[in-house]
């Protein structure tokens, strides 16, 4: 087929359309966005937690998660390290070294400022609300489980045993409650104020006060800067590395790691067709002029 002017213009139009259609690049706004300023958070003070698991129980009840395999009074569960599951949005694990009192660490969705799950979802099934909660919408999910792989905290779980309506499950920060001015069920129920709920910025101030006023605290608020900052934060009197926290997550929000690559895609969509068309024209020219020995070599 000869590449005449009309054909070439058609090709350019196609390339332009392809470039415009490749919308996979971050908008400028998202790089400058500092986060919703009034977003809430939860401060978890590990030194106050007594491992009563009332938080697990409250979460279970408020979310209708069904009776657990072992009751919430049964301390046997502390023998293994548990993770969240489709019937447990939060779990408390026990860490004990000799000569030290046991530390109890509550695990749940960290409600990151720039969540990896939210960025990873190809159907926009997640939402980072102005209240700070990261919530999942059942009506958009195709069940690819990329969110589960993207989460650096291994939080989202899946209803594998549900054949027709399997859901991604995780803590919602009790979004319906906090939207109406309430507090998450776990915070409400905690008898030791190990969990407190308020504006994230104010919680950081409170955490810093506690650290300054009591030298036993480790001088670090976990979640203040990890993976770009999270709404759920921890302070502790024992070293975080010994309590199962990943200290190597860095401070870059995970979605930012994909922006560089995604930005190259529209460039490729626009330049490649032109480059390839150029090669085509050159190779056709060589054939016509007889320079190409492969012309007509085989049927």
């Amino acid at each position: 087929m000869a590449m005449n002017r009309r054909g070439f213009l058609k090709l350019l139009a196609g390339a332009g359309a392809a470039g415009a259609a490749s919308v996979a690049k971050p908008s400028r706004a998202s790089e400058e966005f500092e986060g919703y300023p009034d977003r809430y958070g939860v401060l978890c003070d590990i030194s106050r937690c007594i491992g009563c698991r009332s938080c697990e129980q409250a979460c279970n009840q408020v979310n209708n998660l069904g009776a657990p395999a072992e009751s919430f009074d049964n301390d046997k569960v502390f023998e293994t390290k548990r993770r969240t599951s489709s019937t447990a949005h939060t779990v408390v694990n026990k860490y004990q070294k000799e000569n030290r009192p046991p530390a109890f660490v509550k695990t749940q969705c960290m409600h990151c400022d720039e969540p990896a799950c939210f960025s990873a979802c190809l159907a926009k099934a997640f939402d980072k609300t102005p209240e700070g909660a990261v919530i999942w919408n059942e009506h958009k999910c195709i069940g690819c489980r990329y969110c589960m792989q993207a989460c650096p905290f291994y939080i989202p779980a899946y209803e594998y045993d549900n054949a027709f309506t399997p859901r991604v499950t995780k803590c919602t920060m009790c979004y319906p409650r906090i939207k109406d001015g309430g507090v998450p069920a776990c915070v409400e129920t905690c008898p030791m104020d190990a969990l407190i709920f308020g504006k994230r910025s104010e919680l950081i101030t409170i955490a810093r006060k506690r650290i300054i006023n009591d030298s036993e605290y480790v001088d670090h608020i976990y979640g203040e800067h990890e993976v770009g900052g999270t709404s759920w934060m921890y302070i502790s009197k024992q070293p975080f590395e010994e309590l199962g926290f990943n200290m190597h997550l860095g401070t870059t929000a995970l979605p930012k790691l994909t922006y560089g690559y995604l930005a190259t895609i529209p460039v490729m969509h626009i330049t490649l067709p032109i480059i390839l068309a150029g090669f085509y024209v050159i190779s056709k020219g060589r054939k016509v002029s007889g320079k190409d020995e492969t012309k007509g070599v085989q049927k």
Partner: protein
Amino acid sequence: MSEHTMHTTPREWIRENIFLGKTVGEYIRSLITPFNIIAGAILAVGIPVILYRFLFGLGASTNLSDTNPWGMWLAFDMFFGVAVATGGFIMVVGVYIFGRDDYKSMVRPAILTGFLGYFFAIAGLVIDLGRPWFLPKPFIYFGTASVLFLVAEHLALYLTIQFFEFLPAAVEWLGWRKVRHHLHKIHIALIILGSVLVMGHQSALGAMFLIMPSRLHPLWYSTYIPYLFFASCIAGGLAMLIVESMISHKVFGHQVEASDHEKIHRMTMGLGKAAGYTLFAYFCLKILSMVHGFTWQHLWSGWGAWLGVEVIGFVVLPLWMFTRAVRTDSIKMVRAASIITVLGILVNRFNVVVIGLNWNAPEVYIPHWMEVMGSLTLVTLGVLAFRWVVNRMPVLYRLPEFPDE
């Protein structure tokens, strides 16, 4: 090979072109071959397994878990399948963009391999999804921040393009001249758009892992992972072309003229050379990615030894074999190297998607037998589809009434 005329009745046409000139009874009897018996046994178990997955859910049919949500159907069917189905793209660009007419006879089988490869890779993905009936959702809600969105969009578009690239062969078989003529006109545009899409989704499949630095082992995680995936998919596509051509010409040798065997030798050697170059590029990129990420220190560990096996055994070894084979003009060595390269792509994709991913989590994922069966079934269906098409449509040969463009 059937005699193809324009003036047959529908019944005659069906007998000639569907049943290969036999009566229905004869045709069914001719299907009883050892290969077909094995394939039939696989399907007899595999298709119920796939139905079981849809009726009883992923929990009942896989060993997927909350910590390891991706398993065999993704690692093997989707990631590996897509990586080695690039033969169509390579041939089409080589012949029509770069003008290498000496590979023309390989174009159609390559396009068919590519199309069926992508088709059954996507079938594997659909089986793995939690709610496959919601598959149109991303195309309504546009989660454009997600690399997986890019993959989905590109795969959908590219599969369509591959279908249209293959359509000329089917249309010639059906004898529809006008349609054939129109397809011919959009050929180059399809190829160029398709090439852009291939580079996009092959690299995007690697880029999916950029968001998981703490979950993918540092020896495999790198900001270069999209380029590593693209380079390896080219090597894999070339190797798969050589393997597919090797098998085709044994099984379908009767469709090919005797003189073509010489051409096949030359084309295979040419592809082998290209595969060697690509493997070399991949090897250099891999070294560079480890230097760039300061990850070579992890080489002195069990994981490092395993990476060594992957790179030395499945990249450096076939690279050396290709080089030697080209120098000694040994088609056997090229073919052996190609098989090792294809296996290497398999090992690499499994390392990135299943083995090296979540490497520091307490749980280890081992595929359920149903997952293995499901994958085997999809591969079998692909092979059977390939055979069905090649036995009927002008893929390995050309029809005289449709001149070559």
